[in-house]
């Protein structure tokens, strides 16, 4: 037989086998009805609670560990998780009684000493990517094994302390036993042990994590499935393909508006949504923004606030998957109001904007340089800012130059007096209005925007120093109303949580709430 013919035949045979393999195969998920496969583009930084302060890591930790208090599914206030009860005995002493009979997944007991150990090591390790800065107000922590209580002694009153200890970075780890966490360094990710609904069976960073139901879980929220696999994708587009092909049961975080629309039109896939507490807002650097004096700068900010059409952004850019936001505190959180709507209305008012500028003697059009980062907050960001530019310029009052840089340069530059006006996003540390006011409007704001209002600072001290809901409500009302008048930031939209779910997968909406955590244990499959 000629060699060339034999070569061609060999190639042909390989091709036939390849097609046969392909055609015989199925590209759909082969999971059992008790295994949930979640696809995501969120990559965790780590799995040791003391070393993380990011949403992707928290989405793992909420399934592996317990915290002293937790935000329950659908809720927005901390309730006992590992604790039986918690209360302030005085403004600077917070005492928690740990529930009896709790165990870590390796069978060792979870008691008050483990709680004390977890917080102590968090403070001691002070990991660069960790959240120990939230514990600066803690003077000391005591535990009483006989009573199974933990006492947090605070340096000053902190009404939000229950929220702080419900953060995933404050999860409880074993102090002793075969899987004890080191007291002075982070635990390797593939060796972590917690007392949550799942145990970590496999962790391959960038690839997948496999969680199995923890037989020793003693909490109040047992899992509705036996196993969960989190598959990590590099890009939205690949995740979208995987959902459409049935390779994952749930796709959550993140999809572009176009991809969501595509998924809505895909047979067998349901796009489900719920409340969320992610926000987007504009920031004015009061030193760099245009305006010859404080009055003119204020007028410019107020004129922009009068001009922005939030509903158009929600409809045109995000296809209705976000809602207009009229305060930095998102709707659904206690103490949220709509101060910006009360002050500026819910639709553009060019006449009012013009009057503001005219009264302050500002020449129009005002040159605005607005910065954004194109990918960190999602691929819709460029369209969003193009829409903002269009709205401002269509009013005839502004001339907008848009500029952008990638995140690694952007966030440092924005916070170090490089950008006069810029866009930012925010996910909650905890679902309390304090986490949406102090970081932005207090003089100590991380934004470094040079905004300072002594009355706001005074009200911040009031709300932080009391648990009385009436006093806090009055303080937060004042804070939001004052900030709306000054408009150092302009809230734009609030994002709901949205997931693409295969037919027969239930319960995903149950985890959508202000805490912004993805609890795998609420999901089941037919």
């Amino acid at each position, binding site marked *: 037989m*000629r*060699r*060339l013919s034999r070569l061609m035949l060999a*190639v042909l045979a*390989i091709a036939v086998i*390849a097609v046969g*393999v*392909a*055609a*015989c*195969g199925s*590209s*759909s*998920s*082969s999971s059992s009805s008790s295994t949930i*496969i979640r696809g995501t583009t969120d*990559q*965790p*930084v*780590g799995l040791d609670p003391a*070393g993380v*302060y*990011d949403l992707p890591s928290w989405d793992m930790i909420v399934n592996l560990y317990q915290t002293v208090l937790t935000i329950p599914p659908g809720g927005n206030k901390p309730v006992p998780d590992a604790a039986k009860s918690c209360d302030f005995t005085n403004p600077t002493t917070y005492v928690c009684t740990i529930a009896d009979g709790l165990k870590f997944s390796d069978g060792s007991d979870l008691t008050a000493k483990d709680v004390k150990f977890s917080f102590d090591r968090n403070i001691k390790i002070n990991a*660069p*990517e960790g959240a120990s*800065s939230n514990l600066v107000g803690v003077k000391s922590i005591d535990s009483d094994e006989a009573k199974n209580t933990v006492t947090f002694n605070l340096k000053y009153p902190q009404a939000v302390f229950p929220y702080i200890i419900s953060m995933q970075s404050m999860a409880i780890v074993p102090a002793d036993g075969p899987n004890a966490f080191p007291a002075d360094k982070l635990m390797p*990710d593939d060796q972590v042990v917690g007392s949550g609904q799942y145990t970590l*069976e*496999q962790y*391959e*960073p*960038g*690839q997948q994590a*496999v969680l199995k139901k923890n037989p020793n879980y003693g909490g109040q929220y047992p899992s509705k499935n036996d196993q969960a*696999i989190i*598959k990590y*994708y*590099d*890009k939205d587009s*690949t995740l979208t*393909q*995987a959902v*459409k*092909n049935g*390779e994952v049961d749930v796709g959550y975080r993140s999809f572009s508006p176009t991809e969501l629309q595509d998924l809505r039109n895909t047979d067998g896939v349901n796009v489900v949504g719920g409340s969320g507490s992610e926000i987007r807002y504009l920031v004015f650097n009061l030193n760099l923004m245009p305006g010859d004096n404080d009055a003119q700068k204020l007028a410019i900010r107020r004129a922009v606030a009068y001009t922005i059409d939030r509903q158009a952004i929600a409809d045109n850019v995000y296809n209705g998957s976000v809602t207009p936001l009229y305060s930095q505190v998102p709707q659904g959180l206690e103490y949220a109001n709509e101060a910006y709507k009360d002050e500026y209305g819910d639709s553009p008012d060019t006449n009012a904007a013009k009057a503001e500028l005219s009264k302050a003697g500002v020449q129009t059009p005002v040159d605005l340089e607005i910065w954004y980062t194109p990918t*960190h907050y999602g691929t819709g960001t460029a369209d969003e800012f193009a829409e903002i530019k269009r709205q401002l310029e269509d009013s005839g009052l502004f001339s907008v130059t848009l500029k952008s840089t990638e*995140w*690694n*340069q952007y*966030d*440092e*530059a924005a*916070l*170090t007096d490089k950008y006069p006006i810029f866009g*930012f*996003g*925010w996910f909650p540390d905890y679902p309390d209005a304090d986490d949406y006011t102090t970081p932005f409007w207090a003089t*100590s704001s*991380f934004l*470094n925007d040079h905004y300072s209002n002594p009355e706001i600072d005074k009200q911040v001290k009031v709300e932080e120093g009391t648990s009385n809901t009436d006093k806090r409500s009055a303080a937060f009302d004042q804070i939001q109303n004052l900030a709306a008048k000054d408009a150092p930031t302009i809230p734009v939209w609030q994002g709901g949580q949205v997931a693409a779910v295969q037919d027969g997968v239930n319960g995903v909406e149950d985890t959508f709430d202000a805490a912004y955590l993805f609890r795998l244990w609420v999901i089941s499959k037919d």
Partner: protein
Amino acid sequence: MQHQGTSLRAYLLTRIALAVPTVLILLTLVFLLMRVAPGNPIQAALGGHVSQAEIAKREADAGYDRPILTQYVDYLGDAVTLNLGTSLTDHRSVTSIITDNGSATLELTFWAFLIAVVVGIAIGLVAGRFRDTWKDTGGRLFGIIIYAFPVFFLGFLAQLVFSTELGWLPSSGRASPIVEFELNKVTHLYLVDSLIAGDWNAFWDCVQHLILPAVTLGLVISGVLIRLVRVNLLQTMKGDYVEAARARGISERRVTIHHAFRNALVPVVTVAGLQFAILLGGAVLTEQTFDWPGIGSELVRYLDNRDYIAVQGIITVFALAVVLISVVIDIVTAFVDPRVRY
């Protein structure tokens, strides 16, 4: 022969010695670029959530503000002792990154290379044998077009057709989640590991996941080989010994395969070997398109997070691999082609 052996040995020793400054220059460039680029792992993780003052404090605590020369000396010292360190962002040892993810890249590039060689040589041979016919035109056109296609675009098309529309093959990943979990990874080469385990389900699952990325990458690379084989074949077909073979009454087919083709492959060996080295780095785009968890994908992720420890470690291994492969190519060329002298 003894003289050739002596000169080859001297050549190889010189090449290996030259590899040292080559790698040193590369490492220095990587070090400087990573320090000059804005951002760092702490900024990447916490930016936009805590104050810049807090980030600066954490950066100082982590030693990012040490004098640049001190960092450079430590970095070189670690590189020399192959202490590749632990990644800053996800605390993985760089050695495990190389092992786990490097195996994925190796598996992909090996099969892509094989496909490139088979397709490239076959089509190049046909094109050269049937010069100026429709087979030649078709082969050359295919080579140009396939090489011009951006690999990620070809990948997207392949995903759309074979995965989304036809549902024949998975769109991404190295294996199904269950297979990924249950496979006992001995070599981290999934096809090999599944054969070792005797798990045919896992084997077929891994083959299905491998087809699209390997064929995509292999086809693009084959474009180079098609033209190279064709040109070299035409060149050798002009040789006197080929004319002599024809004059002895040997059939054209036998002349092409037995006499011209083998000699035409000699330069192809060199280029193909270099292509393999390039494949290791060029697999990045393919890995990104298909979410193949290779070393290229990890390199992009660590670059994005400014994890300079991981980037430096990966680049070091890349550089050493390319140097090693080019030395091996030189050795193979010397043995295959007696005309080559060092």
